[in-house]
């Protein structure tokens, strides 16, 4: 029996889960106006239910009160009766596929933006500001406490009325309940502050009210932190005490544990551990708490693999495994594990594109799966075409080309994939050279295996030209030729003269790093900092210059802290707010002339090497060579593309020798990995 633990059913209160795999609560940023789940929201979860998971807990941080704003990040709003109908639609959809569904309920306290909706004055036990969200807040009063407790009970009743299977009360990530618990945020001297019993009072009263509202048979859980990782915060032992106390109240049916506080930029990065952290970094905290409680325990955080999950269960560290980002990457994860198709699982690599978007208030998307949360228009399972079988020739095996080839092959077409290099991956191969970002290669590993499994004719080491492409007698040509390092934008950088090299030169190890290096990063994405890290990790001195407001400005809330930990550890000098004007040689030194964005003052740096990261410029030679010969003149109809419909040219009758020409990804203009994959999926799904 494979995975005897993972697939053994589990009972929470009166609820039977079909297996131990849970998608734990996360903020989706999909709710519609007024914080109501709509079609997108429901289909996103329904896909996971179809995919076989046991339980999903939706609506991470869904507020129960109107002074906990949800509008700015499109969260679910539990403070209104209007929520009942959409939640019942959600519950019905999940139950149809045998999965259970709960929702997280919370009051965020200071952990929000006061300008989010009604411009409320945020409340917190002692009026201490939360730095991450710039959450200025007032000290909460007893009357407000009573109101919010009542709001929790009302919200729970709504959840129950909707036919949901349970509710999870959040006391994690420094929401209002654990703002009361934590000595960092609670300096009260009344019955809600001081002793641990007093600090727990608010939470206990919330849970008491919720239990009273829903009765004994409805599943109620609590999510909490296993260690805040702050000197002045809640440590593991205190949190064990809290967990034990809460479990013994008999008010809750399970506890879900996460590691790390989340009220500073640096601790946030731990909560959804990015690829730089080891697998399951905080399972010991969960296991510690499990050792003192008598109710089931749930834990998520970098559990991405079936055998890993099985091992964690087998060791009795936890009772239910959260595989939440794993489900974003592949909502059919559980079915694939169950049916012995583990090799077909698109495995989460911890790139954190999802959560980094969420912290900007953008909808959560997966870096490697463009169908996630687009279930209404983008298929996770691509069905064979009932139309004509076509010959599809794809040029370039980066993410865009791989997705184009994969989707076309799944549609049943005859696919040839040309790649100039000797392996698949394109620019992702460079991205995975960066220290602590090796797992980026996992994105490509899946495409590599899938394109092999699908029997695609992959031709490596072939720089296809138009004659070679036409010799294939293609019906459709998809160009995914990517981009090249954009080095010639400013001639004064002296690239032609050999005064500066590119980040690609360094990461591909074509050029060895110098001793004293100035990196000019005009993009502030992962590539620039990654190159700095690559050079500094090899014992060299690096100054990272950027015109942006800070270095690595465009890498997201859970990734830049990892970079900054390394920046300070390696002694990389951050120099934001400077442009690179020119580079000239003086003796064996290169002199970089940089100009302050705000003062226009010029400065010079004498270094051994100037490295430039300036994004990419499209590789479009093939496009111009083929454009006029193609039946559609290389045009992608954006109206149908954006409407997720088939390209009109696909229904055009083609004469002998005629073909359609499309482009996807960076060979049009620079996007990111998700953009490249989305380009290919939305185009090729209708081939």
């Amino acid at each position, binding site marked *: *029996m*494979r*995975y*005897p633990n993972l*697939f*053994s*059913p589990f009972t929470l209160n009166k609820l*039977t889960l*079909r297996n131990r795999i849970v998608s734990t609560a996360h903020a989706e940023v999909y709710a519609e106006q007024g914080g109501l789940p709509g079609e997108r929201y429901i289909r996103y979860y329904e896909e996971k239910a179809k995919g076989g998971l046991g339980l999903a807990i939706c609506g991470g941080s869904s507020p129960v009160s109107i002074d906990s704003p949800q509008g700015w990040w499109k969260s679910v709003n539990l403070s209104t009766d209007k929520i009942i109908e959409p939640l019942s639609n959600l519950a019905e959809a999940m139950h149809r596929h*045998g*999965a259970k569904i709960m929702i997280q309920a919370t009051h965020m306290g200071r952990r929000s933006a006061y300008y989010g909706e009604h411009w409320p004055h945020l409340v917190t036990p002692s009026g201490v500001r939360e730095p991450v969200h710039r959450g200025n807040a007032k000290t909460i009063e007893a009357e407000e406490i009573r109101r919010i407790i009542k709001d929790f009970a009302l919200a729970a009743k709504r959840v129950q009325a909707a036919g949901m299977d349970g509710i999870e009360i959040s006391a994690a990530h420094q929401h209002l309940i654990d703002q009361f618990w934590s000595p960092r945020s609670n300096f009260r001297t009344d019955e809600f502050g001081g002793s641990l019993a007093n600090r727990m009072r608010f939470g206990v009263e919330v849970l008491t009210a919720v239990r009273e509202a829903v009765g004994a048979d409805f599943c109620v859980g609590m999510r909490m932190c296993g260690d805040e990782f702050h000197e002045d915060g809640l440590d593991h032992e205190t949190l064990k005490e809290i967990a034990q106390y809460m479990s013994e109240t008999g008010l809750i049916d399970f506890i879900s544990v996460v590691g790390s506080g989340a009220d500073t930029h640096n601790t946030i990065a731990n909560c959804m551990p990015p690829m730089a952290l080891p697998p399951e970094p905080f399972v010991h905290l969960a296991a510690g708490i499990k050792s003192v409680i008598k109710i089931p325990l749930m834990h998520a955080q970098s559990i991405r693999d079936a055998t890993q999950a099985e091992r964690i269960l087998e060791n009795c560290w936890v009772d239910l495994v959260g595989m939440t980002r794993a489900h974003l990457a592949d909502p059919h994860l559980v079915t694939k594990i*169950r*049916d*012995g198709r583990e090799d077909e699982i698109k495995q989460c690599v911890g790139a954190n594109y999802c959560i980094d978007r969420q912290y900007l208030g953008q909808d959560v998307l997966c870096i490697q799966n463009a169908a996630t949360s687009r279930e209404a228009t983008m298929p996770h399972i691509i069905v*064979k075409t009932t139309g004509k079988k076509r010959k599809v020739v794809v040029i370039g095996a980066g993410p865009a080309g791989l997705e184009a080839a994969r989707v076309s092959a799944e549609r049943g077409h005859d696919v040839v994939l040309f790649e100039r290099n000797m392996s698949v991956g394109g620019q992702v191969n460079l991205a995975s050279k960066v220290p602590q970002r090796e797992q980026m290669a996992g994105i490509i590993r899946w495409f590599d295996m899938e394109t092999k499994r699908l029997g695609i004719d992959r031709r490596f080491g072939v720089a296809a030209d138009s004659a070679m492409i036409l010799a294939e007698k293609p019906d459709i040509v998809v160009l995914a030729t990517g981009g090249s390092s954009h080095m010639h934008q400013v001639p004064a950088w002296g690239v032609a003269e050999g005064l500066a090299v590119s980040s690609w030169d360094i990461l591909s190890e074509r050029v060895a790093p110098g001793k004293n290096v100035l990196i000019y990063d005009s993009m502030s994405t992962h590539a620039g900092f990654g190159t700095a890290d690559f050079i500094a990790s090899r014992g060299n001195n690096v100054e990272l210059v950027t015109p942006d407001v800070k270095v690595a400005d465009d890498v997201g809330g859970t990734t830049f802290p990892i970079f900054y930990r390394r920046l300070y550890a390696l002694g990389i000098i951050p120099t934001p707010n400077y442009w690179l004007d020119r580079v000239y040689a003086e003796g064996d030194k290169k002199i970089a002339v940089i100009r302050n964005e705000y003062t226009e003052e010029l400065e010079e740096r004498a270094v051994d090497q100037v490295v430039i990261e300036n994004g990419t410029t499209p590789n479009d030679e093939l496009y111009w060579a083929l454009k006029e010969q193609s039946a559609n003149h290389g045009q992608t109809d954006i109206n149908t593309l954006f409407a997720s419909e088939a390209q009109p040219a696909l229904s055009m009758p083609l004469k002998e020798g005629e073909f359609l020409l499309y482009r996807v990804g960076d060979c049009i203009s620079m996007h990111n990995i998700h953009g490249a994959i989305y380009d290919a999926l939305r185009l090729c799904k209708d081939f």
Partner: protein
Amino acid sequence: MMNYSITALFWLATATLLLGLWKRTKLWRAGQPAEFAWLNLLAIPKRYFVDLHHVVAREPFIARTHVATAGGAVAALGLVAINYGLMLYCAALNWAILAATAIMLIGVFFVWLRRRNAPARLSRGAWSRLPYSLAAFALGLLIVNLPVTVLSAGVAVFALLLLLVGSAELALGIGLGGPMKHAIAGLLHLAFHPRQERFSGKLSTALMTLDLTNQEYGINKPSDFKWNQLLGFDACVQCGKCEAACPAFAAGQPLNPKKLIQDLVLGLSNDEKSGKTDANFAGSPYPGLPIGEHSGSMHAPIVPSLIEAETLWSCTTCRACVQECPMLIEHVDAIVGLRRNLTLTQGAAPGKAPQTLENLRQTATVGGYDRNARYHWAVDLDVKTIQPNMPVDLLLVAGEGAFDMRYQRTLRALVKLLKAAKMDFAVMGALERDTGDTARRLGDEATFQSLAKQNIDTFNSLTFKRIVTADPHVMHSLKNEYPALGGNYEVLHHTTLLAQLASSGQLKLGKSAETRKLTYHDPCYLGRYNGETDAPRDLLKAIGLQVNEMERSGLRGRCCGGGGGAPLTDIPGKQRIPDIRIQDARNIGAELVAVGCPQCTSMLEGVVRNRPDVLDIAELVASVMEHAS
């Protein structure tokens, strides 16, 4: 003068034959008592011309050859008995004898032809002289009956000598164990066959139940067989059809059913000192085991001096040998009888078998699982679990496969189809114990009977009309072997039920979108053990799929290697049986093998890729439902 000589020779030969038969009968009677009725002798002609001929006729060349040779011989002997035995010496009968011997001679010519280019499965040795000795008999008899008044003395003596040689072959066979033994023993075997049901058009595949309270522990020595089993071994003609059909032999495991039967024939000897060695065996040996090192006698233990234990543990109990045997010999009964003694008296089953038997005794599951986990796969399918006082039409018994995530796919598909057909069904939940099938094949009759009795008690406490299972081994136990222990149920294989539902319109099926070239592998326990070869094919046809037949299909299907506990005893060979079966599929270019058995599924899927995909028929049919909905 000539006439009197022939009369004398006839009576001499008859007396010799009867003496030989008496001697041989004494050996058979050393076996254990079995039902006996003289009246059975009357059944021989029908059994010979219908039941036996049905098998022989699968190879028309040899069937016709045998009709001519044996028919000619029997006719000639009958006529000789009348004309010479009764001393009528009627010239007209001579003409008839002439005709009969001429026909026999033609038959013998074809015997000779075949022997010139004999397939490897045929034994040589004494059997190689048969065309000559039979020709001598026919020719001698022909000459002495020629319508000439005077034969030259030389010719007459020559003819009588020929006749003497030929008669010796016929008359001495039964007494001395020559090739012609088969004629007498074969006919008597038809009369007193241990499985009389075989002749009433029914399948008889259930193993005999041991009376454990009477200390029946299987076969230790030849005299432990029933006397009619011993008689059956003597019927063997060493044609090697069993050898050619045996999957273990093909895989190079140390089993050859023909040699096994011949070894048991060697055991028909009262020479207790040295016993008879197998040195004279002139056929294919057990792969990997040399000839000439084994011997046995009536009251000496068979294992290991006559037959090695690994020979017995190589058998998959697929019954291909029994299916092919023109003499209707029951090889599997002999093998399981021998296994029973090893397991029950010595606990000497090899490999993972002892652990498995321990699991069955302790947990009532093959794998040692928690019985409560058997239906975990159904927890989200809204399937009823049967309880006492909860009547259902149909009880789904999943078997051991329910613990296997692969087979759970089949079960989920089956549940989906039963729901689509609006069947009133339930599963057994934690009440289900293993049927004991594996224990029984491994010789552990005690564990089988204990499990069977517990299951029967459980079934008796429940109310249902029929049982359905996707596991032919479960089906065989419940349907064919439980009746002897008092459990009588209507048991259906899932393909049988689904085919019924589809043809009655209760299950509405569309057409499959499957485009891969498909073949169907007959599970031995569904085909040969239960005679069901049509329903799976009908279902596949109903969803618009064409079945491309492999070499060896239907009742003659080749085993996957998964039966009889063989995957547990795991006797090494040169290759694995499932590899051979998948090669059959590859040979016809199949990309998809449809199956109807969890053992077959896991054995065939165990073959390394690239190989055709393997899907249960329930999965294929359920996928049509997905398209329809």
